[in-house]
């Protein structure tokens, strides 16, 4: 762990702690800004997107919790996060789309949600160990 903690600290050498946590603050602000825009715009979900949006949201949540875990373990890399976020959402939507074409759409979307839910649980457990050391 000591090797991996050193480089990010060197990245923001002037304010090691402040630079590190400002990223979290920015992320939270971005999340809230997106939520506020969604609330204000209140767009209606197009029909073709309706089956995929909940799956995509769960996949993105999984990426987000993974990123938080990596951040707390000082292994966060924004490039990895971007790739995993987009990849997660696309793969989840693709699986559900394939399931729809094969006639097992509801079963496969359940499977995707279960798998992503397990991953979210695992990531949250790791975060909990990291934060509370328990």
């Amino acid at each position, binding site marked *: 762990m000591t090797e991996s903690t050193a480089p990010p600290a060197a990245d923001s050498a002037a304010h090691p702690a402040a630079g590190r946590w400002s990223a979290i603050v920015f992320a939270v602000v971005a999340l809230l800004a997106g939520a506020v*825009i969604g609330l204000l715009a209140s767009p209606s979900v197009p029909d073709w997107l309706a089956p995929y949006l909940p799956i995509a949201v769960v996949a993105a949540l999984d990426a987000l919790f993974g990123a938080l875990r990596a951040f707390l373990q000082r292994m966060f890399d924004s490039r990895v996060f971007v790739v*995993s976020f987009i990849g997660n959402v696309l793969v989840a939507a693709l699986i559900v789309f394939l399931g729809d074409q094969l006639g097992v759409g509801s079963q496969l979307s359940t499977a995707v949600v279960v798998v992503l839910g397990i991953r979210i649980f695992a990531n949250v457990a790791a975060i909990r160990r990291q934060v509370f050391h328990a």
Partner: protein
Amino acid sequence: MSGPQDGARDGPSTAGTAAVHTSHGTPRRRRSVTAVVAFILVALLGFGFVTQLRSTAAGDNLEALRSDDLVQILDGLQQREDDLNAEIRTQEATLQGLLAGGASSGEALAEARKQASELEIINGVAPAAGPGITLRIGDPARAVSPEFLLDTVQELRNAGAEAIQIGAVRIGVDSAFVGDAASLQIDGKPVSRPISVKAIGEPATLAAAMSIPGGVVDSVRRVGATIDVGQSRSISITALRTPRAPIYARPAG
């Protein structure tokens, strides 16, 4: 956790490499670009999350369902509709039964009331009106005996009289004719002359029963009294008997 963690999939070494590259110009720039993209993605997640929340809360999630789910829901709804229709039929049948029961019990009550008023007339506790005859027996010699009055009542009953009044006394099943020709009494009350008898029934039949040979009219004339038989379309009998509650007999069955 043995599984890969997104955001750190490449492990510590890759993250460290990326951080080392930040000391140079272009990788650092690329890194800030990916950070901006990451924030945009997080904002997108918030946006999508809220949008999905709203569309779920709006309850129009039927649009989001697949066709086989919709078919299943439709099947369920049809089944429920069938169940409810069956329940409606059962309840309607129950309602019809209850209504019919109510009507028939009302009819039974009306029938019982009718029977009760008929019994009141027969027992003499209610006034009665209808066609019938009046007898007026002039008996200045006081020759008419109680037995003769009893015979007259029985003749009238045989001829179908339904209500009889002699003088001011209503004749009932337990009427008593006592005394002798000089002091006639019915149910303990003296009978004044001329004796007036009113009977409700078929007038012609009653009148014919009075005038048969050896009948009432003959008997009255034999003892030297006079009798007038008058038929009428409407006779009203207003004298009443006091109903007597049975002491020993009780309704049975």
